[in-house]
């Protein structure tokens, strides 16, 4: 819970303070079904193509493409990848790693296939269970929270300044009918190197 009078984000309010508690600690018992056994080592790794592929597929279902562009066209996954290179977001990166593993395990159990290869209906079924915390997960890992964080990243990736890697071609801003002020380009902030 945070103050009503705040325009700061879900990520800034909770994930960055608390997500370190989401990582399985040495000595923790393995999850009951044995399906996912990530460790804190994930924190040190960059998100690899397999993990990014899973999260990209999930984001494409969180904000699907229809007559308007969605997370896929906006390249929300590129936003996510870039953001999680920030060492200050290490705890969130661990959380996203674990979420990908949980989704991967659920996909394998359901169909034997990889999450990105599932149909949209199959993906939605798994994500729906993630949103409700009903997927098998390591002890201490809050799947519902992780899914909520991914929704936040999706919306940020869709509607943030394209300099951060998402909102490719300004598709999110066009959808939101948001016109950036000219000052946007004037501050010499780091631009994502594509």
């Amino acid at each position, binding site marked *: 819970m945070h103050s009503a*009078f705040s325009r700061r984000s879900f990520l800034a309010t909770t994930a960055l303070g608390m997500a370190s508690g989401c990582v399985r600690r040495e000595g923790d018992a393995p999850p009951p079904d044995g399906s996912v056994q990530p460790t804190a080592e994930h924190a040190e790794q960059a998100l690899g193509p397999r993990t990014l592929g899973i999260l990209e597929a999930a984001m494409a279902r969180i*904000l699907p493409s229809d007559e308007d562009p969605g997370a896929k066209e906006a390249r929300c996954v590129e936003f996510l990848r870039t953001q999680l290179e920030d060492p200050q977001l290490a705890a969130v990166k661990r959380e996203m790693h674990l979420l990908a593993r949980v989704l991967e395990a659920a996909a394998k159990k359901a169909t034997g296939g990889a999450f990105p290869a599932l149909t949209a209906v199959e993906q939605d079924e798994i994500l729906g269970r993630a*949103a409700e915390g009903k997927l098998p997960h390591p002890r201490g890992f809050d799947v519902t929270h992780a899914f909520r964080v991914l929704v936040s990243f999706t919306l940020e990736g869709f509607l943030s300044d394209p300099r*951060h890697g998402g909102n490719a071609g300004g598709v999110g801003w066009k959808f939101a009918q948001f*016109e950036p002020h000219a000052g946007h380009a004037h501050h010499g902030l780091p631009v994502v190197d594509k």
Partner: protein
Amino acid sequence: MSAEVFDAVVVGSGAGGMPVALTLARAGWKVCVLEKGPYRQAHEFPQDEVLSCRRNYFVPYAADEPHVLVREGGGGPERSFEGWTSHGVGGGTVHMSGFFFRLHPVDLKLRSTLGAVPGAELADWPFSYDELVAAYDEAEREVGVAGVAGTNPFEPKRGAYPLPPVETHPVCSLVDEAGRKLGWHPFPTPRAIVTRPYDGRQACVYCRFCGSYGCEVNAKSSTLASLLPKALATGSLTLRPLSMAARVELAKDGTARGVEVRDATPGKEQTSSFVAARVVILAASAVESARLLLMSPGTGGKAVANGSGHVGRHLMFNTFSEAGGMLPYATHEKRVPDFRSSMPFVGRSLWDHYYDAKAPEEVRKSGMLRVGFMHPNPIFQAERVATRDGKLLWGSALKQALRKHFHDGLHVEVETFGEFLPTPGTHVTLDPEVKDRFGLPAARINIAHHPRNGLVARRLATAGEQLLRAMDAVDVHTRVPHGETMVLQHGTCRAGKDPAESVLDRDCRSHEVKNLYVTDGSFMPSSGGCPTTLTILANSFRVAHKIIAQWK
């Protein structure tokens, strides 16, 4: 360690710190201002929602510098960034929205007006409204405030504002019409915005990146834009950014001899220095000034200035609630000329519920409504849509809801600010376990609302809802009928006449440490029912003149 002894050291460069620093520097005092955060100037403020509003640009991450929140009836202890107003030169005034209201005289006489309220620790202020009026005039003139005198019928007669009001969106006429229909009195919201060139500053360009952002043209009247340049021009002020005050140190005679400072540059947190001064002035925010005192060993095993045990007590915010609704293009475009104007401000407020002697006792002292557009940040808006009604939307349902939100109309919000009653359970202490990146104990913010807070917040939100319905808004809803404004902080070092019941005297000087003052919102015995930044600025000017008189 510097051998220099300043005439005054001021902890904090926001609304509570800069007025006193400026006034003392003008009087020829050698003043050192300590600011925990960095010194960023207008050209460095990004109009970038992710950077400015959703990461740690203006407030620290909870992982680095946590506050610990404990709410009565559930919730916590939780590490949070909440309770930080800012970190950076200019403090919270840099990214404030700048709604600059004066308090009502009743605010200073709350105990006398309401009588004893069970469960609330009410007190009158130890000085009069008249004394504050001169300080309000000075603060408005020094920082630059835009408004129209005489339009708020619930405000005592006052002089003209230094600047004409902000320009408004045509929707403002709907608010006026709806307000009148309800028998209420909308008036132009006074803003800390320079609406024409003023004091060497450029006028507002109506860019929309106002609240939650730093102003790129210095038209917002932050202390950074308005007071700091004047203070630096005196040649008497030393500004020390990235300087975290860790302890107020007392001399053997019980007076304050200065402040121990930690380097706030990441990686250098254990590097300390000492700033010696004749007079020590704290203005780090109600939460952080109390924390600093509680971290400072005083005499008799108690913290500095805390012989009464009152440091940290009587913490107050304002109650906060809001109502929202959409004005559809389909219906309102025909009614309101230039309905799609890019003008960002609706610019209306209402004080009809501020103090109503005829209202039920519990809500007699309520607060105000401020009408504006929903904050224009698109990610913020999308998250609001995704989390409306406490349910998380995703997938096609989210996409449809976003399309409707962004395409079908203008979104108007009525924010409400109300009286927050001080209770024994709402206070600041040092957390026994959690430490920040400096290794210093985090502030623990305990919140136990008085039942009247919720009634006030609900009453005001309902009034907001009525106003929106009278504007023929659709999708009208209220949010968080029982919240608080964590960035508007008061109490914790209450000013009062009785040293056994308060921390500061009428001049905001410690009852116990004669050269120690607190000039942020800590001194306030009541919260008022409106944003209080102007009051904090004004009081800091008021106290500055007292200090000069007392330390000739």
